[in-house]
């Protein structure tokens, strides 16, 4: 195959900017999930015009293009599964403007999530979506995955804060969706369509985001349980008692132990589960709600409830939570992360099902996550060099998805479908539902050049295969 497209790109960008050396292409072959695929070229972009140029070439020569933020996707989102061009968006991180009087920020796609919240903080405002990876991930990646975090319970996820986008379509046209107003009903809501589209419908080049006043006061509490199921019941009970904490996060015994190993802060390593709860608002209301929650937790059999006295102690607890996802791999090197989500009332049932799956397949299953909104993170810790084990893992994963869907839940709450969950889409959406989505993709990207092989199955990923990753 001749590399005419490469010549075309090189003549427009210059040879230096089109990275093709082995050491570079191999360094963009991975994300934080599974598997590695080497692209033929990597280009770092700083303007929308540059993206237009790349997409025009890609369309002309039918070469796949993959937008990539900081490669922290847990579902294979930015992996160049069919070769072609990776566009590194992460270096375009310097445009960030806060408009405090309009309560909005405008950001370029490479801006880090935490930088947005920090910038808003200077005006007593906040940008609520707080994925654990917020100090690393880009806003572009967050938008494409519709990321959420602990605060999602009370404040919602990324999609709830986007009011307008600038997008380059797969055919290289620049469009704007939404605007700078909170209300907007002009035509289809393309903003919401792009959010969560995992880089398959367009490349986001600018985001207009809503920010809100920072709550004046907050308090954190840690509840200790001797059974994960009971902790699940406690969550349901709190949420059905007319209380809405900002965060309710769950860590099971294995997660507690993993973070304690990394940075000992005195978490109860023998507990079966802990819940970290944050309540925010006006000081009086917060204190009142903390008391009520305390009562419920005791009533439901929490063995201990700890309320940290200083902000510093609170921060340590939340830092511990942030570290769980990577830290749990200490036992074995491979982590298969899932984020199947169920309606809140089904949390205890889901936990029971997960326990059964763990027993059935003898897998090392760790559970933590944004339990308050039903978004659990069952992770299987394994060793990808062990073929036999990986086959058991494949089966367990499939069963986790089935369990979630059967309880009225979904395959993914926030990490996205990417490559790994694609084979299970029809199970959740049905044939017609999936077909509508495929038609939307076809309309936007007739030549299937933008992030192909994601969300929908292709020849390469029509079933879940982990055993030769």
């Amino acid at each position, binding site marked *: 195959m001749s590399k005419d497209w490469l010549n075309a790109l090189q003549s427009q960008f210059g040879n230096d900017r089109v990275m093709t050396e*082995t050491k570079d292409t*191999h360094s963009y072959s991975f994300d934080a999930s599974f598997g590695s695929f080497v692209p033929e070229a990597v280009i770092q972009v700083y303007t929308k015009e540059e993206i237009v140029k790349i997409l025009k070439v890609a369309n002309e020569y039918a070469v796949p293009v993959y937008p990539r933020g900081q490669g922290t996707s847990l579902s294979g989102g930015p992996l160049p599964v069919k070769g072609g061009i990776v566009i590194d968006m992460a270096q375009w991180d310097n445009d960030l403007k806060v408009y405090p009087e309009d309560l909005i920020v405008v950001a370029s796609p490479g801006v880090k999530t935490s930088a947005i919240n920090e910038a808003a903080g200077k005006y007593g405002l906040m940008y609520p979506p707080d994925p654990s990876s917020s100090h*690393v991930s880009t806003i572009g990646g967050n938008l494409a995955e519709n990321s959420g975090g602990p605060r999602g319970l009370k404040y919602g996820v990324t999609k709830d804060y986007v009011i307008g986008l600038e997008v380059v379509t797969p055919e290289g046209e620049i469009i704007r969706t939404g605007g700078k107003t909170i209300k907007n009903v002009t035509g289809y809501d393309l903003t919401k369509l792009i959010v969560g589209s995992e880089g398959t419908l367009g490349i986001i080049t600018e985001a207009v985001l809503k920010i809100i006043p920072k709550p004046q006061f907050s308090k954190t509490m840690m509840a200790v349980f001797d059974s994960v199921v009971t902790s699940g019941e406690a969550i349901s009970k709190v949420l059905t008692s007319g209380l809405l904490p900002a965060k309710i996060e769950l860590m099971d015994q294995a997660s507690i132990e993993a973070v304690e190993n*990394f940075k000992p802060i005195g978490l109860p390593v023998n507990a079966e589960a802990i819940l970290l709860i944050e309540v925010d608002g006006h000081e009086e209301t917060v204190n009142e709600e903390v008391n009520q929650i305390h009562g419920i937790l005791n009533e439901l059999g929490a063995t201990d409830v700890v309320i940290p006295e200083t902000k510093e102690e609170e921060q340590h607890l939340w830092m511990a939570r942030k570290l769980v996802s*990577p830290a749990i791999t200490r036992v074995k090197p491979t*982590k298969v992360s899932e984020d199947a989500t169920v309606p809140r009332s089904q949390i205890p049932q889901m936990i029971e099902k997960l326990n059964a799956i763990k027993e059935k397949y003898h897998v090392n299953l760790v559970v933590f996550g944004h339990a308050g909104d039903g978004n659990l993170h069952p992770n299987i810790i394994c060793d990808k060099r062990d073929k036999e084990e990986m086959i058991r893992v494949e089966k367990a994963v499939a069963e986790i998805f089935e369990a979630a869907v059967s309880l009225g839940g979904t395959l993914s709450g926030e990490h996205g479908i990417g490559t790994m969950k694609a084979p299970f889409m029809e199970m959740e959406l049905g044939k017609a539902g999936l077909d509508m989505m495929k038609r939307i993709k076809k309309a936007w990207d007739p030549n299937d050049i933008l992030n192909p092989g994601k969300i929908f199955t292709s020849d390469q990923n029509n079933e879940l295969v982990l055993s030769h990753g």
Partner: protein
Amino acid sequence: MDKELKQLQEKINYDKTFDCVQCGYCLPACPTYETMKKETHSPRGRINLVKEYAEGKISVEDLKEPIDKCLGCNACTVVCPTNVQYGKILEGAKHVIEEKRTKSKKEEWVENLIFDKVFPSRKWMKRIGNVSWLYQKSGLQSLAQKIKMTSIAPLHLDQFEKVLPDLPSPTKRKSRPKVIKAEGETRMRVGFFTGCIMDSVFFEINKKTIELLIKAGCDVVIPETQTCCGALHAHSGKVESSRQLAKQNMIAFEEEHVDVIVNNAGGCGARLVEYEELFTDEQWKEKAKSFVEKTRDVSQILYEALDQIEFTRPINDIVTYQTSCHMINVQKVTKEPFELLQSIPGIEYRQFKGYDRCCGSAGIYNMLNYDDAMDILDKKMTHVKVSRAHTIVTTNPGCLLQMKLGIQREGLQGKMRAVHLVELLHEAEPVSKERQVTAISNNA
């Protein structure tokens, strides 16, 4: 599997690369990712390349540049939640690259000179110290020119020479006694690890170090047969030479029966505390263990002695501190320099953004990768300037030179200075309280 590949995997610590889950939490901590802006130069990128090399997917040439451009600052290991032993992976990679490299005769000759003759040799170091840094605008440089060494990086020694301190006269250097008694009562017997660069280029700082130690109640012993710590050798993949140097040092200090072994160079100290890992045979391992247990940074000794010394001269100055990566990330000595600084009367301490990130000196990185090191330094200097500090304190000779260079590059000579922590403490004219008390009671 191919036997050769298997051997390679062992050498390169292939198994350890699996600990990396590519979460990217290390990206914000890595200075080379910040300045070079590519995954090729990020911690997880490098780990991935090492792994791919060990799997036979890429060649040693592909691996070389990304590994050469790593500062070895270990900032990534500190933030890594899965505890990836990046230091081991890096050393394994350097070792293998070094083995595979086909060196030209000239390269061999110069390397041999640097690593086997100059750095382990007290004679050479004295010569360097006496005649000026690497032979007055450099024996090495003119040497390199003489033999038309175009293949090794231009060392930019002229840049470094500008910022070197006045060197002590040979007679002054020779007159240093081998044992110096504590002022007042002896609290402990310390062996002083003098360090190659510290004892040549920064001889005065070593002198001040000894003066501080005796005020803190230490008998200071300077073993004659001690040699280079071996850090540069290890960081260049020369495992065997670094092991030999370690042995020589262990014997030198063992013979003196000291309570602790103290050094004032963050980089050397980090090497010393890793001696145990160099050995597998029981006897040497045992010796190394006891050596490591005794090893301290000078700031640790002085911090413990803070209640016994008093600073008599206030320093009315705005001061900031550039940490040494090897001291904080490997030796894990963090709080002592801060506490010491803040105990000096008159000082206004101001932290600058990124004070705990590598300054780019990193052993001889700034000579071998001059431009990359200057990118890192320039970034740092913009933050230093914001702090409006007048004095930058360091705890390692490489960092000290680098910060001096930074000041020079910003044209701030005369407005800003870089010093070793020891120099600033010395400037505050500490006196031993005990001696004061004795003096007073003698008067009475």
